[in-house]
């Protein structure tokens, strides 16, 4: 503990592989004995600055802080903040930093949490900025992979669905590329392929390779992990394109039959219909466990950035 104290978290690679490992170790310890940490953040205040709607990420952060014995203030939705009066992000955060010990920001504009971090002395966590980065989802995903597969290297990872706007996918690619021998199967319609910067992250990785496919079935028998994503309506400019593409990539029990018996299915949630509910009972489906891991990794993150004793 100590190296992360006072730091911000903007991107998945802000923490070194060793620092991330420490965080995962702490997450596992909390998971095993949550009572031992019930007062770890006693007297600490978390500000949740959510400029766009989110239930899961916000609840996960709030639950994390409350379970550590800390308290939470914040807003959800731009209309309920002073941004509705035209206040800049920098000024809002400078003010919030007078009251809170740590802040998490979600914002529709890419890079907004970086502006917040540059404008204040308290640690700022990026809770998702537009289609750009979502590092705490990435930490959740990495913790889940480490817990379920026992390692974070030499894995064959299929990413399926909206790979263009899906911020969780971009963050995960960037983080996993750092580990040795990763193979990515990028499965998406042509309209929703990964942006150029994500391809660069793979190319610059630690011996990572990637394959781009349009059909999920071709990849399924080869995968250790299948990461499904939602085709998000709010990222489309028109309804017609959304309706045409949303059902293209649905995982069901039949498709699960051709997958490896050891393959795990992950999803950042919320799911719409890209995973049929019949898959939920398959022991390979880990997406609800993933959500719980998210709370534990956020507990570890809050403790580490605040520098509270372990």
């Amino acid at each position: 503990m100590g190296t992360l104290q006072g730091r911000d978290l903007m991107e998945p690679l802000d923490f070194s592989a060793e620092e991330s490992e420490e965080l995962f170790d702490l997450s596992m310890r909390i998971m095993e004995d949550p009572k031992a940490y019930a007062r770890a953040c006693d007297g600490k205040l978390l500000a949740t600055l959510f400029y766009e709607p989110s239930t899961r990420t916000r609840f996960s952060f709030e639950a994390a802080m409350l379970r550590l014995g800390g308290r939470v203030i914040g807003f959800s939705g731009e209309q309920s903040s002073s941004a509705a009066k035209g206040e800049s992000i920098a000024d809002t955060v400078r003010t919030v930093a007078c009251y809170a010990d740590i802040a998490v920001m979600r914002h529709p504009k890419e890079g907004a949490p970086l502006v917040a971090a540059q404008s204040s002395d308290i640690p700022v966590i990026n809770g998702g900025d537009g289609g750009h980065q979502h590092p705490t989802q990435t930490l959740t995903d990495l913790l889940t992979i480490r817990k379920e597969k026992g390692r974070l290297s030499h894995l064959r990872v299929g990413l399926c669905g909206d790979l263009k706007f899906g911020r969780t996918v971009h963050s995960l690619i960037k983080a996993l590329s750092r580990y040795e021998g990763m193979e990515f199967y990028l499965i998406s319609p042509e309209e929703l392929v990964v942006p150029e910067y994500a391809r660069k992250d793979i190319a610059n990785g630690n011996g990572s390779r990637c394959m781009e496919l349009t059909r999920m079935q071709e990849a399924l028998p080869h995968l250790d992990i299948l990461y499904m994503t939602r085709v998000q309506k709010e990222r489309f400019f028109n309804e017609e394109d959304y309706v045409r593409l949303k059902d293209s990539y649905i995982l069901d029990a039949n498709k699960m039959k051709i997958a490896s018996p050891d393959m795990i299915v992950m999803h950042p949630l919320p799911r719409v219909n890209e995973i049929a509910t019949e898959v939920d009972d398959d022991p390979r489906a880990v997406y609800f466990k993933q959500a719980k891991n998210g709370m534990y990794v956020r507990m570890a993150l809050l403790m580490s950035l605040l520098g509270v004793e372990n």
Partner: protein
Amino acid sequence: MEVNSIEKGIVIDHIRAGFAMKVLEYLDVDIANDTVAVIMNAASRKYGKKDIIKIENVTDADPAALGLLDHTATVNIIENGKISRKIKLSLPQRVVNVVKCKNPRCVTSIEPSIPHVFRLVDAEREEYSCAYCDEIAKVL
């Protein structure tokens, strides 16, 4: 073609042929008042053709901005009719308020007080990425 030498000012030589106007635009020169000579497609032993810019009485230039535009160009500062300083250009690692981010989803599109910051990500392809949103920009 003959252009008189200058007593004091700046001479940017070996600009890629055809790019002089772009360089001038980035230099933020006051073309209504400053004395400026723009020579385009002049013969060059090294490159075949080149552009040259001479600006009288102006000696401050932002090397970061110039390097970004054309790092093969040479910049000579002239004082008392002689070259007093040569600036060697290179692609800058970081440029501030030279390139604007064109990504409509970038925070720079709504937060007017913050600087536009770009970082060099690929020197060979001369590509920069926005420090806020990672949008790739090719400068020329």
